[in-house]
């Protein structure tokens, strides 16, 4: 059990819900089981407003499951999720989005048959009037460096462009917390750098908090404020990237020498 592991350093909560602090997200004893498999094991996890947190961990550590619990794609077996101090555990996905949580899935999931403009319209029409569409679309595309592709069909964008577009689309709703699942998987070094720049800019200019799942440690290093290591469904350790890098236990679990 992760919680009984002496190496675990959980975030000390001010109170159960994290209200009255800068804490934007707080989970309490969050647990998800698939049949006999425990994918998320009594996790207490917190993110401060405006923080850029990375979530790492070996394959099967339960990272994606954890993200899906926060977005509401999955229902937890037990435990609670608090967002800005209020309980959102039983809230439907789309209502969580309205509260200010955005997600970008692991697999690129643009509307492949739509043009870039149409893609942007899907989130945009929820927050803007039709007279603003054009200017807002251009603004967003400018931010993710896609102005030239406004009428390109999504399926013919490059992989990096697709990732940037998705982040841009998530930004349209002006979230306070963005969840990204492996935003640079399969990208070239240059493309990764573009994404890192985009994320940092969003984080710094707009004050959006992030939870980013990523395997690429160099990428994590280039963006993360703090890093949380998940292992076997629980929080293994938490800290700055330097702390985590220096932790021999983390190396051990990545190499699979558990015992």
């Amino acid at each position, binding site marked *: 059990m992760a919680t009984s592991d002496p190496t675990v350093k959980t975030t000390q909560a001010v109170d159960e819900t994290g209200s009255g602090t800068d804490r934007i997200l707080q989970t309490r004893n969050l647990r998800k089981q698939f049949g006999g498999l425990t994918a998320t094991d009594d996790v207490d996890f917190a993110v401060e407003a405006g923080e850029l947190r990375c979530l790492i961990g070996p394959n099967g550590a339960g990272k994606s499951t954890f993200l899906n619990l926060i*977005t509401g*794609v999955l229902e937890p077996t037990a435990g609670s999720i608090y967002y800005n101090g209020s309980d959102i555990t039983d809230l*439907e*996905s*789309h*209502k969580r*989005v*309205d509260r200010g949580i*955005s*997600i970008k*899935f692991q697999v690129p*999931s*643009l*509307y*492949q*048959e*739509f*043009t870039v403009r*149409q893609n942007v*319209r*899907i*989130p945009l*029409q*929820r927050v803007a009037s039709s007279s603003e569409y054009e200017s807002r679309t251009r603004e967003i595309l400018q931010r993710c460096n896609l102005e030239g592709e406004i009428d390109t069909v999504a399926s013919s964008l490059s992989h990096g462009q697709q990732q940037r577009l998705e982040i841009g*689309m998530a930004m349209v*709703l002006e979230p306070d917390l963005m969840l990204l699942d492996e935003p640079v998987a399969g990208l070239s070094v240059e493309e990764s750098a573009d994404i890192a720049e985009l994320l940092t800019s969003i984080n710094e200019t707009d004050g959006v908090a992030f939870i980013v799942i990523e395997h690429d440690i160099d990428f994590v290093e280039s963006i993360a404020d703090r890093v949380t290591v998940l292992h076997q469904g629980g929080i293994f350790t938490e800290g700055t990237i330097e702390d985590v890098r220096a932790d021999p236990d983390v190396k051990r679990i990545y190499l699979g020498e558990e015992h």
Partner: protein
Amino acid sequence: MSVKSSIGVLANRLREPFEGPNTIGNTNGFWIGFLLTVLLFAIYPILFGPYAALNPAQFLVFALLAVSLTFIWGFCGILSFGQVAFFGVAGYTFGIVTINIPTYTGATLGIIIAVAVATAFAAVIGYFMFYGGVRDVYVTILTLVVALVLHTFMEQTAGSQWTIGEAHLGGYNGMNVPQDLAVGFGETGVAFDGVAHYYVVLFTLVVTYLLLRAVVNSRFGYAMVATREDEARTEMFGYNTTFIKLAAFTVGGAIAGISGVLFVTWGAYINPSQFELVAATMPVIYASIGGRKSFAGTILAAVAIQYLELQLTGEWAFVIVGSLLVLIILTMPDGIAPRVRNLVLAVGEWRSNRDRSGQSPPAEEVSD
């Protein structure tokens, strides 16, 4: 020149709400074709006589039914075999109301109640399915089974205990509905019989067509199409996709209900065969052949196939129709409409290439 261009501006204004990337056919050529087609249907009774319009009226009624499917299948990804259920329920309801209230009031109420019942029925079925997590092919099969339940049930309502007020449900033999399509109050009103009924059907179809085009190009339409493309993703933009599906399905049920009322007033008769597997399949076929993402394609396919069936009177009729279905599905997976559009685009491109290489002045494009 200025008059011409202001007409052009006006025409563009008029077109605007009905256009967008979600519909096929947004060019001048398309709209001219649209107006010509409507005109052709409008003068059909004048050309061939009022009686000749009676069967085309039925073709258009079933085209409207197929349009209700195109709306939910082509634009929201819900393949329903149950459109005939809403169609039939509305038809029976209209009969029950008008047999009990055989006045203009009854006829008016009949239309309203029939469409309301069909809509409510669709909403209940939709709620039951979508909020219960039923998806994809299971939606298709569940809606089909709903139609079959109605079929089985209605077939055994021959007994006199199956009477609602004055209206006898009639079992397998069905229900005769003497009331014409009419609106009014008490003993005063307007009845639409014969060729007038044809024009009501045509008008309803054209209006529905335009409205639905406007809807699918509206915010809600984008949300529907986004749901069709990727439900999970759309949910993550804050859309309540479950509700979007329910709303689209309910609107589809309402349209099917309207077509049911037009059907029962056409033939003055309805029976349980409207709920049968074959009947349930026909809208799917019209939409598949015409193009499930194209209302115009669906309508034209519905009319063409029904016309063909009526003309083929020999024993080879089913063989020909069946083979055509297979052939079209194999050669044109998205139906005929996208093919036609691509062809038009290709021809347009070829012509503009030719023009560019030839002597055509480029200035013309500016005024367009």
